[in-house]
């Protein structure tokens, strides 16, 4: 195959926040850049762009992943949920309220990634202790809060969910 055999763009079809989407994407565009610039879903943030900060966290086929470490071209056939979709469905409402009540955000840049990561933890483990919460959030950077309030918020949301059961 010669280099002429390769396309600079790829056609993809996937589901984003419940809606079917078809698009043509540059092959080197990251998934998070496409979600933001192609679809206007700016709730997923672009921080470090090399997988360290977790601000770009999205849910792909039911699991949290780094939106900056996937190519948009790889989304073909995938089911993707961003913070916008998780908010609209109400599934992260208790966490969002707890973040608000505990002042678990200042600038808010890390918050979408924190919320999606915490939601996955609580879905897998309804009653994590504080060290476990810290471990689960260890891949998400916050440069404002010092994390204590975030851990408080996740612990509150977990306690709330257990009470509601």
């Amino acid at each position, binding site marked *: 195959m010669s280099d002429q055999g390769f396309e600079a763009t*790829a056609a993809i079809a996937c589901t984003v926040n419940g809606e079917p989407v078809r698009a043509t994407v540059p092959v080197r565009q990251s998934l998070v850049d496409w979600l933001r610039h192609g679809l206007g879903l700016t709730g997923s943030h672009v921080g470090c762009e090399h997988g360290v900060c977790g601000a770009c966290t999205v849910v792909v086929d039911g699991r949290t*992943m780094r939106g900056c470490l996937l190519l948009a071209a*790889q989304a073909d056939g995938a089911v993707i949920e961003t913070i916008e979709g998780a908010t609209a469905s109400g599934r992260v409402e208790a966490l969002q309220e707890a973040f608000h009540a505990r002042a678990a955000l200042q600038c808010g840049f890390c918050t979408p990634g924190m919320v999606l990561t915490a939601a996955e933890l609580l879905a897998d483990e309804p009653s994590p202790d504080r060290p476990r919460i810290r471990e689960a959030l260890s891949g998400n950077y916050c440069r404002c809060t010092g994390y204590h309030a975030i851990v408080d918020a996740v612990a509150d949301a977990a306690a709330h969910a257990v009470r509601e059961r």
Partner: protein
Amino acid sequence: MKPAPFAYTAPTELEGALALLREHGDEAAVLAGGQSLMPLLALRMTAPKVLVDINRIEPLRAVGHGGDGLRFGALVRHAEALRAVRDQVGPAHLLAQALPHVAHQAIRHRGTVCGSLALADPAAELPACAVCLEAEIELQGASGRRFVPADAFFEGVYATARSVDELVVGVRFPATAPGTRFGFVEVARRHGDYAILGLASWARVVDGEVADCRLVYFGADERPSVATRTARTLRGGRLDDPATRARAKECALDELTIAPDATYGEGYKRRLAGALLERVVAQWGVAG
């Protein structure tokens, strides 16, 4: 922070991927989980002409488990491997202890066991586990499939026995003898970071005596370090004998080759080596 331009292709057949590697040689890069490759591309530490995405090659997703051990195909993610080990072998197995230390959950959902082996970062957990458990790396190329023992596979920093036209298609971890005890410990600044120093181990303990054991450090040298002399010091000794443990600790401090590290000094790493040895021997003492 954007990758240099590359051509992208996602073949659905293994043969197609191998043909691309044959044609493009070291100008091609294999994209499996991409959790190390994508950062390397973003930082432009590597700029391959062709990215060969193997994620659409379905047979590479297989997890195998039988009397002879565990096999992970090239697309088995860390999280899937952890589930398989916990469910099918047990939570005490070395891999079940080590995998939670590989990066963070969102990365473990995408990154692959074979990708970590193929990358061969000297501070990574899985190459050391593969050497400790005497795993075999399955390589496929134009001339067929070959199996390379993990100890021979890792040659240096990001350097392995894989030829540029070969693909790591799987890894086999042999079954361990019943009653084998495992110890795994690492020191990192933050959970999920690469280790400053870590130690993977197994031991067979009979009536409180170490009948056999294997110790593999990572983050010390340019590839996993098998601590042969330290293991010999422990063999035949009693787990609860402070003198045996002290001798082994001294031996570990002395035995390791420490590659230059921009952040942590050699003396610190040697002291850590002794401390980690004490911790894994203590883990052996807790029957799994």
